Protein backbone atom coordinates (compact mmCIF):
# COMPACT_ATOMS: atom_id res chain seq x y z
CA UNK A 1 0.00 0.00 0.00
CA UNK A 2 1.19 3.52 -0.69
CA UNK A 3 1.03 6.57 1.53
CA UNK A 4 1.62 10.20 0.75
CA UNK A 5 2.84 12.38 3.61
CA UNK A 6 2.41 16.11 3.10
CA UNK A 7 4.55 18.30 5.30
CA UNK A 8 3.88 22.02 5.48
CA UNK A 9 5.28 24.82 7.56
CA UNK A 10 3.11 25.85 10.44
CA UNK A 11 1.23 29.08 10.19
CA UNK A 12 3.46 31.90 11.36
CA UNK A 13 6.72 30.14 10.58
CA UNK A 14 8.90 32.08 8.24
CA UNK A 15 9.10 30.52 4.75
CA UNK A 16 12.04 31.94 2.83
CA UNK A 17 11.50 29.59 -0.08
CA UNK A 18 7.84 30.50 -0.44
CA UNK A 19 8.70 34.16 -0.32
CA UNK A 20 11.36 33.74 -2.96
CA UNK A 21 8.98 31.83 -5.22
CA UNK A 22 6.39 34.56 -4.86
CA UNK A 23 8.99 37.18 -5.76
CA UNK A 24 10.25 35.20 -8.71
CA UNK A 25 6.75 34.63 -10.08
CA UNK A 26 6.04 38.33 -9.86
CA UNK A 27 9.35 39.00 -11.56
CA UNK A 28 8.24 36.74 -14.39
CA UNK A 29 5.10 38.79 -14.84
CA UNK A 30 2.63 36.65 -12.90
CA UNK A 31 1.01 39.57 -11.15
CA UNK A 32 -1.92 37.71 -9.65
CA UNK A 33 0.04 35.86 -6.98
CA UNK A 34 -0.75 37.05 -3.48
CA UNK A 35 1.28 34.50 -1.62
CA UNK A 36 3.24 31.29 -1.97
CA UNK A 37 4.31 28.68 0.56
CA UNK A 38 6.42 25.66 -0.05
CA UNK A 39 6.07 22.27 1.53
CA UNK A 40 7.10 18.75 0.74
CA UNK A 41 5.62 15.39 0.09
CA UNK A 42 7.07 12.01 0.84
CA UNK A 43 5.63 9.04 -1.01
CA UNK A 44 6.07 5.78 0.83
CA UNK A 45 5.74 2.24 -0.43
CA UNK A 46 4.53 0.15 2.51
CA UNK A 47 4.52 -3.55 3.17
CA UNK A 48 1.48 -3.09 5.40
CA UNK A 49 -1.85 -3.60 3.65
CA UNK A 50 -4.26 -2.83 6.44
CA UNK A 51 -5.21 0.86 6.16
CA UNK A 52 -5.59 1.43 9.84
CA UNK A 53 -2.28 -0.10 10.76
CA UNK A 54 -0.60 1.62 7.83
CA UNK A 55 -1.85 4.99 8.97
CA UNK A 56 -0.66 4.40 12.51
CA UNK A 57 2.74 3.35 11.25
CA UNK A 58 3.11 6.39 9.00
CA UNK A 59 2.01 8.66 11.86
CA UNK A 60 4.78 7.23 13.94
CA UNK A 61 7.25 7.86 11.12
CA UNK A 62 6.14 11.48 10.89
CA UNK A 63 6.59 12.03 14.59
CA UNK A 64 9.92 10.26 14.64
CA UNK A 65 11.49 11.77 11.57
CA UNK A 66 9.52 13.02 8.63
CA UNK A 67 8.25 16.24 10.15
CA UNK A 68 9.96 18.61 12.54
CA UNK A 69 6.95 19.35 14.68
CA UNK A 70 8.58 22.49 16.06
CA UNK A 71 7.94 24.17 12.73
CA UNK A 72 5.98 21.76 10.56
CA UNK A 73 2.61 20.03 10.44
CA UNK A 74 1.87 16.93 8.43
CA UNK A 75 -1.02 15.06 6.94
CA UNK A 76 -1.25 11.51 5.68
CA UNK A 77 -3.14 10.15 2.72
CA UNK A 78 -3.33 6.46 1.87
CA UNK A 79 -3.61 5.42 -1.75
Amino acid sequence: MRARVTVTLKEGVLDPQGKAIEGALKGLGFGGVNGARQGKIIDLELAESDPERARAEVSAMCEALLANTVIESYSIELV
Partner: protein
Amino acid sequence: MKSAVIVFPGSNRDRDVATALKVATGIDPVFVWHADTDLPDVDLVVLPGGFSYGDYLRSGAIAARAAIMPAVAAHHARGGYVLGICNGFQILTESGLLPGALMRNAGLRFVCRKVKLSIERTDTAFTRTYRKGQVISCPVAHHDGNYFADPETLDRIEGNGQVVFRYAEGTNPNGSVNDIAGIADETGRILGMMPHPENLIADHQGGRDGLGLFAGLADLQPA
Protein backbone atom coordinates in the same frame (compact mmCIF):
# COMPACT_ATOMS: atom_id res chain seq x y z
CA MET B 1 40.82 18.20 28.17
CA LYS B 2 39.61 15.15 26.31
CA SER B 3 37.24 15.48 23.39
CA ALA B 4 35.40 13.40 20.84
CA VAL B 5 34.27 14.39 17.34
CA ILE B 6 31.26 12.47 16.06
CA VAL B 7 31.55 11.45 12.42
CA PHE B 8 28.26 11.11 10.57
CA PRO B 9 28.02 9.98 6.96
CA GLY B 10 28.51 13.29 5.15
CA SER B 11 30.34 15.13 7.93
CA ASN B 12 33.04 17.12 6.21
CA ARG B 13 34.50 19.60 8.69
CA ASP B 14 35.35 16.87 11.17
CA ARG B 15 39.06 17.15 10.40
CA ASP B 16 38.94 20.94 10.50
CA VAL B 17 37.56 20.99 14.01
CA ALA B 18 39.93 18.23 15.10
CA THR B 19 42.82 20.40 13.94
CA ALA B 20 41.50 23.36 15.92
CA LEU B 21 41.14 21.24 19.06
CA LYS B 22 44.64 19.89 18.64
CA VAL B 23 46.14 23.33 18.10
CA ALA B 24 44.31 24.83 21.09
CA THR B 25 44.56 21.98 23.58
CA GLY B 26 47.54 19.98 22.41
CA ILE B 27 45.49 16.79 22.41
CA ASP B 28 43.99 15.05 19.41
CA PRO B 29 40.28 14.35 19.77
CA VAL B 30 38.97 10.85 19.20
CA PHE B 31 36.68 10.30 16.25
CA VAL B 32 33.49 8.45 17.14
CA TRP B 33 31.36 6.75 14.50
CA HIS B 34 27.68 7.73 14.40
CA ALA B 35 26.55 4.11 14.63
CA ASP B 36 28.28 3.56 17.96
CA THR B 37 26.18 3.79 21.08
CA ASP B 38 28.86 4.63 23.63
CA LEU B 39 31.15 7.59 24.01
CA PRO B 40 34.69 7.29 25.28
CA ASP B 41 35.50 9.11 28.51
CA VAL B 42 35.65 12.73 27.33
CA ASP B 43 34.83 16.22 28.59
CA LEU B 44 33.64 17.63 25.27
CA VAL B 45 31.65 16.15 22.40
CA VAL B 46 31.73 17.96 19.07
CA LEU B 47 29.16 17.61 16.32
CA PRO B 48 31.09 18.88 13.29
CA GLY B 49 30.06 20.75 10.18
CA GLY B 50 29.10 19.05 6.97
CA PHE B 51 26.12 17.69 5.11
CA SER B 52 25.21 14.68 7.21
CA TYR B 53 23.03 12.39 5.09
CA GLY B 54 23.34 14.95 2.33
CA ASP B 55 21.15 17.33 4.36
CA TYR B 56 18.34 15.43 2.70
CA LEU B 57 14.84 15.73 4.23
CA ARG B 58 16.01 18.58 6.56
CA SER B 59 19.52 19.62 7.52
CA GLY B 60 20.61 17.56 10.49
CA ALA B 61 17.32 15.66 10.75
CA ILE B 62 18.57 12.19 10.04
CA ALA B 63 21.79 12.60 12.02
CA ALA B 64 19.78 13.78 15.02
CA ARG B 65 18.27 10.28 15.14
CA ALA B 66 21.63 8.50 14.91
CA ALA B 67 22.51 5.73 17.33
CA ILE B 68 25.13 7.84 19.10
CA MET B 69 22.77 10.69 19.95
CA PRO B 70 21.31 9.26 23.17
CA ALA B 71 24.86 8.97 24.45
CA VAL B 72 25.47 12.62 23.58
CA ALA B 73 22.39 13.64 25.56
CA ALA B 74 23.48 11.46 28.46
CA HIS B 75 26.95 12.98 28.36
CA HIS B 76 25.40 16.41 28.73
CA ALA B 77 23.08 15.27 31.49
CA ARG B 78 26.14 14.02 33.37
CA GLY B 79 27.64 17.52 33.22
CA GLY B 80 29.59 17.20 29.96
CA TYR B 81 30.01 19.82 27.26
CA VAL B 82 28.65 19.70 23.72
CA LEU B 83 29.63 21.90 20.78
CA GLY B 84 27.73 21.83 17.49
CA ILE B 85 29.06 23.84 14.59
CA CYS B 86 26.99 24.49 11.46
CA ASN B 87 25.54 21.06 10.64
CA GLY B 88 26.24 20.25 14.29
CA PHE B 89 24.01 23.17 15.33
CA GLN B 90 21.30 21.89 12.99
CA ILE B 91 21.61 18.43 14.54
CA LEU B 92 21.30 19.94 18.03
CA THR B 93 18.08 21.77 17.18
CA GLU B 94 16.68 18.76 15.34
CA SER B 95 17.37 16.55 18.34
CA GLY B 96 15.76 19.02 20.72
CA LEU B 97 18.96 19.65 22.68
CA LEU B 98 18.69 23.29 21.61
CA PRO B 99 15.50 25.23 20.89
CA GLY B 100 14.40 26.61 17.52
CA ALA B 101 15.19 25.58 13.97
CA LEU B 102 17.58 26.50 11.18
CA MET B 103 15.78 27.33 7.98
CA ARG B 104 16.94 27.99 4.43
CA ASN B 105 18.97 31.22 4.17
CA ALA B 106 16.79 34.19 3.37
CA GLY B 107 18.74 34.74 0.14
CA LEU B 108 18.15 31.06 -0.69
CA ARG B 109 21.78 30.63 -1.65
CA PHE B 110 24.70 28.97 0.00
CA VAL B 111 26.85 31.70 1.57
CA CYS B 112 30.58 31.43 2.23
CA ARG B 113 32.16 34.63 3.51
CA LYS B 114 33.63 36.22 6.61
CA VAL B 115 31.15 37.87 8.96
CA LYS B 116 31.49 39.77 12.23
CA LEU B 117 30.35 38.18 15.45
CA SER B 118 29.69 39.99 18.67
CA ILE B 119 30.34 38.06 21.84
CA GLU B 120 27.19 38.32 23.93
CA ARG B 121 28.35 36.26 26.90
CA THR B 122 31.70 35.41 28.34
CA ASP B 123 30.54 33.25 31.20
CA THR B 124 30.53 30.08 29.13
CA ALA B 125 33.46 27.74 28.68
CA PHE B 126 33.25 28.43 24.97
CA THR B 127 33.62 32.19 25.18
CA ARG B 128 35.61 32.87 28.30
CA THR B 129 38.73 33.96 26.42
CA TYR B 130 36.81 36.74 24.70
CA ARG B 131 35.64 40.09 26.09
CA LYS B 132 31.94 40.82 26.40
CA GLY B 133 30.84 42.88 23.43
CA GLN B 134 34.03 42.06 21.54
CA VAL B 135 33.52 41.76 17.80
CA ILE B 136 35.46 38.99 16.10
CA SER B 137 35.81 37.92 12.53
CA CYS B 138 34.56 34.46 11.58
CA PRO B 139 33.71 32.65 8.35
CA VAL B 140 30.32 31.17 7.57
CA ALA B 141 29.59 28.52 4.96
CA HIS B 142 26.04 27.25 4.91
CA HIS B 143 22.75 26.99 3.09
CA ASP B 144 20.44 26.59 6.07
CA GLY B 145 21.54 28.96 8.79
CA ASN B 146 18.49 31.15 9.19
CA TYR B 147 17.71 30.79 12.88
CA PHE B 148 14.02 30.72 13.71
CA ALA B 149 12.09 30.28 16.94
CA ASP B 150 8.50 31.05 17.74
CA PRO B 151 7.96 34.29 19.70
CA GLU B 152 7.61 32.65 23.12
CA THR B 153 10.72 30.56 22.65
CA LEU B 154 12.60 33.58 21.39
CA ASP B 155 11.53 35.61 24.43
CA ARG B 156 12.67 32.82 26.65
CA ILE B 157 16.11 32.38 25.17
CA GLU B 158 16.68 36.13 25.01
CA GLY B 159 15.40 36.48 28.57
CA ASN B 160 17.73 33.73 29.79
CA GLY B 161 20.63 35.24 27.93
CA GLN B 162 21.11 32.11 25.87
CA VAL B 163 22.27 34.01 22.81
CA VAL B 164 26.04 33.64 22.76
CA PHE B 165 26.93 35.09 19.35
CA ARG B 166 25.18 37.60 17.15
CA TYR B 167 26.06 38.71 13.64
CA ALA B 168 27.40 42.23 14.06
CA GLU B 169 27.80 45.33 11.94
CA GLY B 170 25.11 44.41 9.44
CA THR B 171 26.78 41.17 8.43
CA ASN B 172 23.85 38.81 9.09
CA PRO B 173 24.26 36.51 6.07
CA ASN B 174 21.10 34.47 6.32
CA GLY B 175 18.19 36.42 7.81
CA SER B 176 18.43 34.92 11.31
CA VAL B 177 15.98 36.40 13.76
CA ASN B 178 17.66 38.89 16.15
CA ASP B 179 20.92 38.31 14.24
CA ILE B 180 21.37 35.10 16.19
CA ALA B 181 24.52 33.22 15.17
CA GLY B 182 24.89 30.91 18.15
CA ILE B 183 22.97 29.89 21.23
CA ALA B 184 23.56 27.91 24.38
CA ASP B 185 21.16 25.75 26.32
CA GLU B 186 20.07 26.78 29.79
CA THR B 187 23.08 25.17 31.43
CA GLY B 188 25.54 26.94 29.14
CA ARG B 189 27.20 23.60 28.46
CA ILE B 190 25.75 23.10 25.00
CA LEU B 191 26.70 25.58 22.31
CA GLY B 192 25.33 25.55 18.78
CA MET B 193 26.62 28.02 16.22
CA MET B 194 26.51 28.43 12.45
CA PRO B 195 29.89 30.16 11.87
CA HIS B 196 33.14 28.23 11.64
CA PRO B 197 35.69 29.34 14.22
CA GLU B 198 37.69 26.21 13.33
CA ASN B 199 38.55 27.78 9.97
CA LEU B 200 40.13 30.89 11.48
CA ILE B 201 42.85 29.59 13.75
CA ALA B 202 46.11 30.27 11.91
CA ASP B 203 47.86 33.11 10.17
CA HIS B 204 47.67 31.45 6.77
CA GLN B 205 43.87 31.52 7.15
CA GLY B 206 43.94 35.27 7.63
CA GLY B 207 43.74 35.39 11.42
CA ARG B 208 43.19 33.54 14.67
CA ASP B 209 39.93 35.00 15.90
CA GLY B 210 38.38 31.57 16.11
CA LEU B 211 41.10 30.01 18.18
CA GLY B 212 39.88 31.64 21.40
CA LEU B 213 36.83 29.42 21.44
CA PHE B 214 38.91 26.26 21.49
CA ALA B 215 41.48 27.77 23.83
CA GLY B 216 38.68 28.41 26.31
CA LEU B 217 37.95 24.70 26.32
CA ALA B 218 41.55 23.70 26.95
CA ASP B 219 41.24 23.34 30.69
CA LEU B 220 37.71 22.06 30.97
CA GLN B 221 37.51 20.12 34.17
CA PRO B 222 35.68 16.86 34.11
CA ALA B 223 32.28 17.62 35.63
